[in-house]
C-alpha cells in the first residue's frame, strides 16, 4: 500500500519532467559522473534470496532510523527455514524507516527499509528501489533530473574526546548509538581493521569518533596500556590521518592532473580600478532605487567579464581549444564562436567553475544577474551539469579572499585564464605630480604557450585593461 503511494508520486514527477522537455545533456568533462541522482527517500526492497523463498523472518536489525550506512554495511539478518542470510545495503545514505520489527516476517520483493540515498544510484541498482511495475517511470525521472555533483562527504565537527583511560576488559554499557558513526569513521575502522562495536564511543550518545578508533587501534596493537597517548594532548608525535578525497576534491585532482600537460606562462599586470569604482558607485545608487532584473548592487566582476569578452572579440585565439586533427594526428586549434566565461567559485564543498554562456551577447546587467544566480546555486550545492560545462575561458577572483599575484592553472580544453588579486588602495602620482589615492588590482593571466605567444597575451591583456580602467570607452561598443 505504501508502495502504491510512492509509485503514484513517481508517476506525477515523471510526467512533470517529460512535459518540460529538458534537453538531454551528454556528460562532458565537467560532469562528475554519468549516473543519475535521486533526491527522494526511496524504499529499499528485500532482494530475492533465492530458492523460491517468498518471505523470511527478521532475526535482528543492525541499523535503526537515523543511522548512516555505507554500501555493503549490514542492515539486518533474516532467516528462512534453514538459511540465515545477512542483508547488506546497496547504497550510501541514512536509514529513515524500518518496515518490520525483529521477529516479523518480511516479504521478498517488498520494501524493507526507507533510505535517504546520498550517493550515486547506478542504473542496475534502480531495480532495488522500485517494484517492476514502476521501474520504467522512475528511470525517466532519474534521468531527467538535473545531473549534479555529489555531496561531499564531510566529517562532523568532532568534540575533543577526554583523555582515554587504560582499556578495561569489561566494556562499559554501550550508548544508544554505539555503532553509529560517520562514513569517515567507518572508513577508518575498515582501514585499521577495527570492529566498530569494540570501540567505546565518546561522542554524543555513545557515537564512535575518529579519535576513539585510533585509540583503540593503538591500544590493541601495543600490549601495555599507554596512558600518555591522549589524543587531545598538544604535544605528541606526528599523527598521520589518511583522509579520502571528497568528490569535489577528487574532480579537482583529476582535472588539474590533466591540465599539467599545458605549458603555462604567466603575464601579470596592475589595473587601476579607480574609474570603475566610481562608475560602479554611481550605478549602484541608481540600482538601489530602480533595480534591473532584481539586482540592487553590482560588483566589479561583470565589468571584467564583459571586458574579457571584448578582448576575445579582438583576439579570438583566446577562446579556442587545442585538439588533435583526427586525420593527420597533428595539433589543431578549434575556434569557438560563443564566449562562455567560467567563474571559479569557492563553495562549502570545494572549488566549482560554473559558466556564464554567450557573454558577447549579454549586457552587463544580464551578466550580473546570471552571476548571482550561479553563485546562489553554488553555495547551496545545486549547480547543474549544464551550468558547469561548455566553458571556453575562465576568471578566478581569488582576490575576494586575498592574494595579490596568482598563477592560475588553465582549465582543460581552454587556453587562457585570468586570476584577479585583491583590490587595494595605494598612493600614486597624478599628472600634476600630486599624491592621490588609487585603487588597484592585479590581473594575472596564464596562457597556453603552445598556441598563444606572449605578444598576443599582452595585447589582449591591454584591451582588458583599457576597458576596465576606462569603462566609458565601452560605450563606444554598445550595440
Amino acid at each position, binding site marked *: 500500500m505504501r508502495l502504491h503511494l510512492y509509485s503514484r508520486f513517481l508517476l506525477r514527477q515523471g510526467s512533470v519532467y517529460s512535459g518540460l522537455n529538458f534537453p538531454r545533456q551528454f556528460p562532458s568533462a565537467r560532469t562528475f559522473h554519468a549516473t543519475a541522482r535521486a533526491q527522494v527517500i526511496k524504499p529499499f526492497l528485500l532482494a530475492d534470496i533465492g530458492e523460491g523463498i517468498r518471505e523470511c523472518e527478521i532475526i535482528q536489525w543492525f541499523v535503526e532510523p537515523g543511522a548512516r550506512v555505507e554500501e555493503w554495511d549490514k542492515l539486518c539478518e533474516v532467516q*528462512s527455514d*534453514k*538459511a540465515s542470510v545477512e542483508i547488506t545495503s546497496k547504497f550510501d545514505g541514512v536509514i529513515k524507516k524500518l518496515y518490520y520489527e*525483529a521477529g516479523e516476517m518480511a516479504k521478498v520483493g517488498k520494501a524493507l527499509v526507507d533510505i535517504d540515498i546520498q550517493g550515486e544510484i547506478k542504473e542496475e541498482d534502480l531495480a532495488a528501489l522500485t517494484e517492476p511495475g514502476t521501474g520504467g517511470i522512475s528511470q525517466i525521472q532519474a534521468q531527467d533530473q538535473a545531473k549534479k555533483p555529489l555531496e561531499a562527504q564531510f566529517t562532523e565537527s568532532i568534540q575533543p574526546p577526554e583523555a582515554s583511560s587504560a582499556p578495561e576488559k569489561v566494556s562499559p554499557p554501550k550508548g544508544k548509538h554505539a555503532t553509529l558513526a560517520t562514513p569517515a569513521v567507518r572508513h577508518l575502522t575498515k582501514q585499521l581493521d577495527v570492529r566498530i562495536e569494540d570501540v567505546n564511543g565518546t561522542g554524543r550518545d555513545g557515537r564512535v569518533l575518529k579519535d576513539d578508533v585510533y585509540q583503540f587501534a593503538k591500544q590493541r596493537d601495543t600490549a601495555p596500556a599507554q596512558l600518555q597517548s591522549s589524543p587531545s594532548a598538544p604535544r605528541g608525535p606526528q599523527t598521520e590521518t589518511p583522509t579520502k578525497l571528497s568528490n569535489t576534491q577528487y574532480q579537482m585532482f583529476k582535472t588539474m592532473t590533466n591540465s599539467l600537460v599545458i605549458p603555462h606562462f604567466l603575464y601579470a599586470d596592475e589595473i587601476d580600478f579607480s574609474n570603475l569604482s566610481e562608475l560602479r558607485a554611481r550605478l549602484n545608487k541608481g540600482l538601489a532605487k530602480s533595480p534591473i532584473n532584481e539586482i540592487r548592487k553590482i560588483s566589479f566582476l561583470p565589468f571584467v567579464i564583459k571586458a574579457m569578452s571584448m578582448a576575445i572579440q579582438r583576439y579570438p585565439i583566446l577562446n579556442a581549444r587545442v585538439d588533435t586533427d583526427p586525420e593527420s594526428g597533428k595539433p589543431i586549434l578549434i575556434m569557438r564562436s560563443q564566449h562562455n566565461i567560467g567563474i571559479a567559485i569557492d563553495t562549502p564543498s570545494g572549488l566549482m567553475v560554473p559558466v556564464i554562456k554567450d557573454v558577447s551577447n549579454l549586457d552587463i546587467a544580464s551578466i550580473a544577474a546570471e552571476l548571482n544566480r550561479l553563485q546562489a546555486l553554488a553555495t547551496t550545492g545545486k549547480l547543474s551539469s549544464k551550468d558547469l560545462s561548455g566553458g571556453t575561458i575562465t576568471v578566478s577572483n581569488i582576490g575576494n579572499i586575498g592574494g595579490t599575484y596568482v598563477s592560475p592553472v588553465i582549465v582543460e580544453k581552454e587556453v587562457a585564464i585570468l586570476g584577479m588579486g585583491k583590490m587595494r588602495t595605494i598612493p600614486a602620482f597624478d599628472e600634476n605630480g600630486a599624491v592621490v589615492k588609487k585603487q588597484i588590482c592585479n590581473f594575472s593571466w596564464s596562457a597556453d604557450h603552445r598556441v598563444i605567444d606572449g605578444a598576443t597575451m599582452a595585447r589582449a591583456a591591454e584591451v582588458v585593461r583599457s576597458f576596465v580602467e576606462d569603462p566609458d570607452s565601452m560605450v563606444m561598443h554598445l550595440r
Partner: protein
Amino acid sequence: MAPSRGLRPLLRTRIPALKPHARRYSEFVAAATDPSQKARVFVSQSQDPYLNLSIEHYLLQRTPGDSTILFLYTNSPCVVIGRNQNPWIEVNLGVLRNEELGVKLVRRRSGGGTVFHDEGNMNYSVICPPSEFNRDKHAEMVVRALKSLGTEKARVNERHDIVVDKEDKEGALKPFKVSGSAYKLTRLRSLHHGTCLLSSPNLESISKYLRAPAKPLIKARGVDSVSSPIANVGIDNFKFQEAVAFEFRSLYGTLSEASVWNRSIFFVDEKAKEVPEIAYGLEELMSEDWIYCQTPQFKFSTKNITETDSVQSIPSSWPPALRGIEFTAKHGKFTEVSVDYNDRTASSEQIELPLLNKLELHKITDWEQLLPPFLFTDSDRNVAVSPGRTMNQLFGMGNYEPSAYVRE
C-alpha cells in the same frame, strides 16, 4: 676442550627446534587466508562444540572469496539449536543440566532446527562463493561418500536432508534421517553445514533431550524444528572423514592448473583459540547472553488450557491453581508478567511481580522462591501446591532427578 680449539664449539649451542606437533596458530591463520588456495580441507582435533563453531565462523569470514573450504569436526555431547530458535521450546533443559552425560547447550550461527551431537556424529561444513551455492550440491557430495562406504540407499530428500531408506518392521522402506543441514549466507560467502549420524550411542535418548515440557505452553515466532525418525549409518568416523575429503577433492581438485591444490588435510587443534577473532567468537558463543537472549519474542501462558487439553499437555496432577501464570519474554527478558491464582487460593500471597520485569528468564534458578507453595482448598481438601516447583520443571531449573523433567 683444549684452548687451542677456541671457544667455537661452546658457541655452537643448538637452539631446540620447535616440536612439529605444537603447531602455532599462525600456521592455521596462514593456511586459512592463503589466497592461492582455491580448495582446502580442514579437520578439527578438538571436540569442544563452541570452539569448533568458532573455527567454522572464522573460516567463513577469512578464507579467500573464491575458495571452497571443507571443514570436518566432531563434538562432545551437546544440543545445538538454530540461530533463531527458542531453547525452552526445543530442548529439555532440566534433563540437559541434570543428566550425567553433561550435555552442553549451544546456539549456532546458521538457521534451521535443533540437533543432538556426540562423538558418534561427524559434522561437515562447506564454505563456497555465493555464485556456486546450491543447497543440494554438497549434500550430494556426502551421499556419494556414503555410497562409496557401502550405504547404497542414501539419498538427498526434498528438504535437503540426507536420508537412508531402511526396511522397517513390516518390511517397507522408510526413510530415516541421517543428516540435517543448515545454511548461512553472507554477502561474500555461503556456508552449508550438516551433521551425519555415524555411530551415535545415544540414539534412543536423543528424543528425551529434544522434547521440551514447556513447548505446548509457549507461543512464539521463529523456526520450528521438524522431527523425523533417525538412524545411524554405521560407519567409522575416520573412514567417513576420508571418504568425504576424497569426494571433495574429486569435486574441486580439477581446478585450473594455476591454482595450487594442496592435497594434504590441515589439522586444527586447540591452539586455534589464540587467534583473536576465534577467541572473540568463542566468548560470544559461550555467553549466556547469546545462548538465551537471542531468543525471539515469545509468550508463555498456562491459562486457557482446558481440562481435555491437559491430558496431553500438562500432566493432570498439576493443580488448576497453577493456571494463571503468563509472561512475555523479549530478548530473553521478562516484559510482562502476570500471575493469577483465580480466587481459589486459601492464602493471599502477593508476588512482587514488578521485580521480575527486565530480569532474564534463564537467570531464575529457583521458581519456588518467587512462587512459594501454598495450601489449596479443593472441595474440602487441603492440598499443598507448589506452582514454583512446576515452573522449575517446565524451565529446567532446580535440582531434581532428570526423570522429573520428562513430560509424560
